[in-house]
């Protein structure tokens, strides 16, 4: 998601500059109405989605969801391994993707010579990677596991590789934007004091970019939390009757558990799917809210 916000002042100026009467022709009114409809389609869908999900799953949203293992009897089934699995997978994903993404962004934004064809190729490559279907990353993770001779594809680290590489371009792109927003005057001031470029990056540029990096990273991780497709290839859809407890442990995750329940024919499982969806949506709304709060509280610092 891009964070572009044009200046408020010019916007108001434009409002004042246009004549009122001509804005009221039937065509203009219909046009504005259509624009409103466009927005409403998105928002109404969002609201209806949340309401129908809550309506279907609310009764089933209780402690059992967290404490019980999956079961063939809907009344006894829960998502305990999926919740724990999601935590492990997303944690490992973060550890893998954040340092790599930030390092790449720092190299490209602060050190790389932009006129060099290879660096431009890297940029093009990253833009392309950010729009490759997520399921392809599952196939990549299979390839990586095969390369290391890992026979069992259903392990947390495999999922972390798939999701980590999936969100890596997103982290790189948002970190670069955050670094670019740091005024070059700060870098110059630091360099003029006799600090090296690396010291400048580490002590001045990166700290100043932290809010932007945090926003982008949280949004990227929220994508990882909700992603299911690549993990299907890694055998994420298994009946797990133990707590995932390490990087080499077997896993399933929340979205996959939901997928599994939507596939079941009995309506009771659909209630479970809805209940788990409520939980997942709540987590993601929370992550989005944190990201937005960080972004808004740090806008226009210089």
């Amino acid at each position, binding site marked *: 998601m891009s964070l572009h916000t044009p200046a408020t002042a010019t916007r108001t100026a434009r409002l004042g500059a246009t004549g009122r009467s001509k804005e009221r022709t039937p065509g203009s009114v219909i046009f504005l109405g259509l624009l409103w409809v466009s927005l409403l389609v998105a928002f109404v869908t969002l609201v209806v989605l949340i309401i129908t999900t809550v309506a279907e799953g609310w009764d089933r949203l209780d402690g059992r969801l967290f404490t019980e293992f999956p079961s063939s009897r809907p009344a006894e089934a829960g998502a305990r391994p999926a919740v724990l699995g999601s935590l492990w997978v997303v944690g490992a994903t973060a550890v893998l993707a954040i340092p790599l993404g930030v390092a790449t962004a720092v190299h490209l934004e602060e050190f790389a*010579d*932009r*006129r060099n064809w290879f660096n431009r190729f890297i940029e093009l490559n990253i833009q392309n990677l950010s729009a490759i279907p997520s399921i392809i990353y599952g196939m990549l993770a299979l390839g990586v596991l095969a390369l290391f001779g890992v026979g069992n594809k259903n392990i947390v680290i495999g999922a972390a590789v798939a999701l980590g590489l999936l969100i890596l371009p997103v982290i790189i792109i948002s970190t670069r934007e955050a670094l670019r927003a740091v*005024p070059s*005057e*700060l870098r*110059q*001031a*630091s*360099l*003029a*004091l*006799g*600090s*090296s470029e690396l*010291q400048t990056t580490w*002590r*001045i540029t990166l*700290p*100043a970019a932290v809010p932007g990096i945090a926003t982008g990273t949280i949004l990227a991780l929220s994508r990882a939390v909700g992603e299911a497709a690549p993990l299907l290839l890694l055998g994420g859809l298994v009946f797990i009757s133990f707590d995932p407890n390490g990087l080499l442990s077997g896993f399933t995750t929340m979205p996959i558990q939901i997928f599994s329940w939507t596939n079941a024919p009995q309506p009771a499982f659909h209630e479970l799917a809805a209940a788990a969806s409520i939980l997942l949506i709540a987590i993601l709304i929370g992550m989005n809210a944190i990201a937005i709060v960080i972004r808004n509280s740090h806008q226009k*610092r*210089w």
Partner: protein
Amino acid sequence: MSTHDDTQVPTRNPATPPTAAQTQEATMAQATTSNPISTRPAQSAHRDLSDTPASVLECEDVDVYYGQFRAVREVSLAFGHNEITALIGPSGCGKSTILRSLNRMNDLVEGARVKGSIRYWGQDMYADAVDPIEVRRRIGMVFQKPNPFPKSIYDNIAYGPRVTGMKVASMDDHVEQALTRAALWDEVKDKLKQSAYGLSGGQQQRLCIARTIAVEPDVILMDEPCSALDPIATARIESLMVDLRDLYTIVIVTHNMQQAARVADRTAFFTAGVDEETGDRTGVLVEFDRTSKIFENPADQRTEDYITGRFG
């Protein structure tokens, strides 16, 4: 008067036009009547300057290129120890470019190149063995817009000593000393832990000067340090510069001729020459002399046109 026996800074123009004395005579009357710029209080301008002070920095035949474009051409200049030297001239005359090549800040611009030699205490600053970071440690810089770090006042000052690994007995004392020298201590001593962004523009600029002083440089370069400030803040910075002159060598780029006249010991006037073939504007040094001489009795017609407001 002239010190052409000095071989270190040769004059580029072998066919020296009229001699200094002739030029002086010719322009004397005119200058005293038509020059609107007062060189008044002259805390500095009329200071006794030796003809041959120790020079800290010397440019010899310096060309600065950005890619294929030559921004400045054949500049030879020397900056005297514990003196204030002002670089003046119209926009695009290359004075900031020269300033930024004096501590290798131009290295950071992609495609920027310096030809000729710039020496710091006789050492070629652009020699292979020279570490640009070490150069910038000795030759600090204050920028056009105050640019404090988004840190506390204290950390702004302590940053330089920390990153350069200076051995400081007590950082608190060191910070206090730097702020005192920059005439800011009394205003900020009770809020050292507060963000530097809470200070006024003039205070921020003095903070930037204090920050530069804290790494104990030899030379301080100032790139139009008052252009973003109001007249009162400007006056404070100017008097600060005069105070600091005894400790540091100062080079200042300014758009404001009165400012150069007020603070600078020596002044170099640059202008932009237009290449007839390519239309490129290349900066050239027109005249370099004591400030009083430049403003009261310039040797070159172009200098006179500029300071009397007929051009630029």
